[in-house]
Each structure stands twice: as C-alpha cells, then as structure tokens.
C-alpha cells in the first residue's frame, strides 16, 4: 500500500506543553518557526513568551529515533503595554518569530507583537572565569592587605547556560497591528507589515524605518482592502510581496521607486461566480503568503484553500488545493462562531515538493505537488505513542458516513491548527494545536 503524501509515513515523535484540557490563555501558541538549519525550533505564545527547543545529537544506538527537541531557552519577549493616548491595551501576544541566518556563535531572532519588534540574541555560556585576585568566589571583595601573591584568572567549564538578551527594540513605527516580519536575503534589512503599511528597517538602526508601501486612503471611509501578510523574496533582495484581504498578491521591486505603492506584478484569480455568497469576501482574504525555497513560486492560504502561484504568471495560480471544502456549506455557522476569521498559515517542505497547512479538529493537511497526493492527519494525545504511525483521517461531508470517517458536524472547531512549520532539510514537522506543540517525523530515513 503506497503511503499517502508521497512515500512519507508520519510518526509521532514528541509533544510539548501542558496535558490538561483547561487551557490557560497565555499558553496559546501563536507562532512556530524553525531556524535555517532546523536545529532550533522557536514558539511564541499569547503570553508574550518565546520558547526555543534544540535538536539533540542523533541517538546512535536507536537508529530509527531521529533526534529529539528539548527546551533550550525560555524568555519573556513582550509585556502588555498601554497606549495612553488612544486608551488601548497593546497585547503581548507574539505574532511572528523570524530567525536571522547565523553569523557567529550566537543566534538571533526577531519577535513581534502588534506594535513592537525586538531583536533577541541567544547565546551560550559554558565557561566562567575563576581565580580573581581581588574577589572571592562568591563575589565579595577581599581585603587588599590579605593578598600575598598574584595569579592569572582562568576560564573553567560550567553547566551550559543559555541567555537571551534584547539587542534592539524597533518601536513606534506602526499605527495598525503588525501581521508580518520578514528578513531580507541581504541579512541587513527586514520588513514589517501592518494592516495598511509596510516598513523597511535596518537591523542596526532602531530609530528610523522607511515606509515602502502605504495603502491608507485619504478618506478612511473609502477603505476596501488591508494588507494581511508580507514577505521578502528568498534570493532577490529587491523583491517582496504582500497579500491583501481581497485575495490579491502584489509583488514589488524596491528598485523601481522609494514608495512601492505601484506594484510590479499583481496576482489575482477571478472569482468563480457560482461560489458567491455573503461570505465570499471573507473567505477570499489571504491569511498567509510564503515563497518557495527556490523563489520561483509562492503559496497563499485563504480560508478554504491553498494556492501555488508561479511568479511568472499573474492571472491565476498554477495549483489550487482544497483544504476543507466540506466547510463551504457551513460558512454561516462559521461566521457566527467567529471561526471564519481564523488565520491559517501554510508552509513548504525543504525541496518545495510538499506543502502543509492546518484545519479544525486538530487536523492538518499535506499536499504532495509532485505525486499529486494529499493526506489529512491528526495531532492528538490519543495518537501519541512513541513512533506511532499517524493514520490518515477523512471527513464525511454528508450522507452516509463510512467507518473511521468523521462527520462535519462532529468536528471540534475549538481545536484548530493555525501554525505549522517544516524542518528546512529533513522530514520533521512541528504542528501547534491550541497549547501543545507536536513534533512528527518521517519513519523512513
């Protein structure tokens, strides 16, 4: 039997987070991101904390066990703030984390809440100085008269300590809520996007940023579209894209002009008139946009589907995958319970052959582009035995429910997988349920 999703057979590896059903709001995971080597996995939560997991060296005695991810560092990135002028609370929830490519022994990441971006340095300390002349071991100063000889202090090993320190704070540049952060391939600049503007920053400079896109109309009453996500091209440092609530993606070239209000390319698929409903606008709003690693394609996620676009073709996507088409007839209920506003993310695997995104009932989907196969899997505590192979799941839209299928009306809409990440090289995935992080890996090495 051919394994779904290509030749991959996904197995449970680890789950992080509290077991209990009573979820503390601060523990709700709001972002997940692997670093460029995949050795580190960062999560951000609603409470403003960042937890970084590190992959341990492969366990040679158990070859089928790939490496495990263990907690490496935990720190409070953002705190709740209050904007006195507008009488508004600024949430500490981490909206996005993006790693910088590693340049030296330390690791750097950008984390952002609604208003402020911070650059964090995560460094290891495994040695400490010993043998000071003027100080005792506990730090107290010695009586100078008691010193009879001099010695050279030496560095001695100590237990590994991982420290996170904020190196830069990029504040006060966004009137609206920040939805995206993206590091440029030049490794010197990055962009941040809110509902109406995209700003360009230099990593070293915190008191200034350049506004490169501004879609705020002079009269706010004429507002029809907002920016929902933005990303730099992985190789071309002059190119970035931003997606909108109208389902449009605009590609901009920063060499053309200082203010990129005029796009270089515009990607839009004409709407299918047969699908028109009250909620057509909401479901066409793009919640995430991601370039492929190759830079040739980009993927967008809207409420019901994932679309792959070829950057050379603007008038329609080259591939469209329905994530949960069975929800199309339930849009009214999903509007009432607010689920229709959920922002799902999507991600590519290392070689751009498979894409993944989340759904409800703790289901997530993978679409294998090359093999034209797809699979729906579930992240649940019941399927959490070590190396347990995940069984494909199926939802029955109506009519006769087959054995092992779950009916649409039994889906738990409070259990949603919004954030997923794929290791940049290996078949290891991180899937975030409300407050747990599941790590799955491919059984076949």
């Amino acid at each position, binding site marked *: 039997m051919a394994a779904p999703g290509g030749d991959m057979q996904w197995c449970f590896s680890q789950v992080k987070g509290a077991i209990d059903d009573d979820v503390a709001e601060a523990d709700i995971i709001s972002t997940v991101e692997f670093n460029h080597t995949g050795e580190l996995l960062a999560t951000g939560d609603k409470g403003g904390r960042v937890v970084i997991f590190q992959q341990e060296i492969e366990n040679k005695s158990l070859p089928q066990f790939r490496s495990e991810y263990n907690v490496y560092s935990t720190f409070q990135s953002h705190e709740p703030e209050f904007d006195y002028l507008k009488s508004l609370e600024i949430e500490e929830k981490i909206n996005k984390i993006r790693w910088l490519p590693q340049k030296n022994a330390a690791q750097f990441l950008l984390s952002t809440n609604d208003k402020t971006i911070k650059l964090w340095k995560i460094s290891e300390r495994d040695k400490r100085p010993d043998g000071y002349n003027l100080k005792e071991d506990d730090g107290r100063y010695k009586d100078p008269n008691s010193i009879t000889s001099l010695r050279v202090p030496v560095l001695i090993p100590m237990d590994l300590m991982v420290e996170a320190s904020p190196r830069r704070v990029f504040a006060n540049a966004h009137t609206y809520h920040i939805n995206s952060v993206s590091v440029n391939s030049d490794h010197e600049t990055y962009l941040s996007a809110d509902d109406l503007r995209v700003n360009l920053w230099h990593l070293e400079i915190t008191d200034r940023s350049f506004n490169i896109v501004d879609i705020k109309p002079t009269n706010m009453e*004429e*507002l029809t579209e907002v920016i929902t996500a933005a990303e730099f091209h992985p190789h071309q440092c002059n190119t970035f894209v931003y997606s909108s609530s109208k389902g449009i993606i605009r590609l901009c070239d920063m060499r053309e002009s200082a203010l990129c209000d005029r796009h270089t390319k515009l990607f839009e698929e004409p709407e299918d008139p047969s699908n028109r409903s009250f909620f057509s606008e909401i479901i066409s709003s793009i919640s995430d946009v991601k370039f492929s690693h190759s830079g040739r394609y980009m993927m967008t996620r809207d409420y019901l589907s994932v679309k792959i676009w070829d950057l050379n073709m603007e008038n329609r996507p080259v591939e469209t995958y329905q994530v949960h088409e069975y929800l199309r007839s339930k849009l009214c209920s999903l509007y009432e319970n607010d689920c229709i506003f959920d922002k799902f993310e999507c991600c590519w695997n290392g070689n751009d052959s498979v894409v993944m995104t989340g759904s409800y009932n703790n289901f997530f989907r993978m679409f294998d582009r090359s093999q034209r196969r797809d699979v729906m899997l579930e992240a649940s505590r019941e399927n959490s035995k070590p190396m347990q192979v995940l069984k494909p799941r199926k939802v029955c839209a109506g009519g006769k429910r087959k054995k092992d299928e779950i009916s649409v009306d039994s889906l738990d809409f409070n259990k949603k997988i919004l954030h997923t990440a794929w290791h940049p090289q290996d078949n290891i995935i991180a899937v975030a349920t409300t407050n747990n992080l599941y790590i799955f890996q491919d059984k076949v090495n």
Partner: protein
Amino acid sequence: MEVNVEARRILAVSISKLYASRSQRGGLRLHRSLLLSMVMRSARDIYHSSRESEQPNGEQPATEEPMDTNCDPKEKARLAPDLADTSADMAPGVSDKLDESDCDITEDKENLSPAKQSRKRRGKASAAPDFLPSKRARLEPGEERYAAPVGSCRAGVGDYRSALTLNQVIPAF
C-alpha cells in the same frame, strides 16, 4: 422570502460582533472590522433589494438620497430608517462623524412613525422590526455574549446598538 430572513439575521449578528469587538483587548482590529462591514453591506443590500421587490410602490428610504454631493460610498452605506435607532455609545474617534450623521438621523426621525420617534425604552407594542433583538444587560469585560455551535444557524445574538453606518466603523481608528 428566505434570503431576506437570512440577510436580516446576518446583519443582526454582524452588528453585535462589531459592538463586541470594541471591548476587545488590543483595540479594534481593522481587518476584522472591514470584513464585518463588507458582510453587513452585502446583507443590507440583499435585504433592501428583497424589500423593494416586496413593495412595488417603491417606498424609498429618505436617507439614501440627500448628501449625494458629499460622498457616494458613504451614502450607499446608510442603513434604512427602521434600522436607524441611534446609539449613544460611539467609539471616541467616531464622534466627529457622528455630528454629521446626527442631522441625517434627525431627518430620519421626521419620517419615522410616531411609535419610533421616542428614543426611550420601547414597549412590546412598538413597531420595531421583528429581527432586531431585544435589549439585554451590558456585559462585563471579558464576558462572552454567546457561543453559537456549528450546525445551528440561529440568531442567538445579543444586544446591538445600530446606526453605526458601515463606513463609520473604519474611521474609528
């Protein structure tokens, strides 16, 4: 007409969501407010067009004509008189827009039936449209009004304060 009923329910749900979002932590979300206003607009357009087809005499709501010179999109967003019960409770940023709209609402009042001219508590005998929910107690911050389960598309909506014209929601930022 089923579409009409659906449109009214969606309109009522949207209004309550708009109101609830004002007390949300982190402030009003522009994207969400925009999407809500779009749904409300579609629902309102459908509601109007189905009402017009019900009343072939063409009883046009008076507010849709005046102030055409000012701002077209704004006028198109005006709610019909029977939805225009005013709210005392606007977001701070909307206050200057309110001044403008007050005179429209005054105009509305001239066209309202006597039963609606009073802004005081309505009795059961009032001619309020049946889809508008009855007033309920104010929620404490953080309290949820309702949680509509999937599969039941009932209008379990809470309190509403209408007369926020759709486009006034956005300038509230």
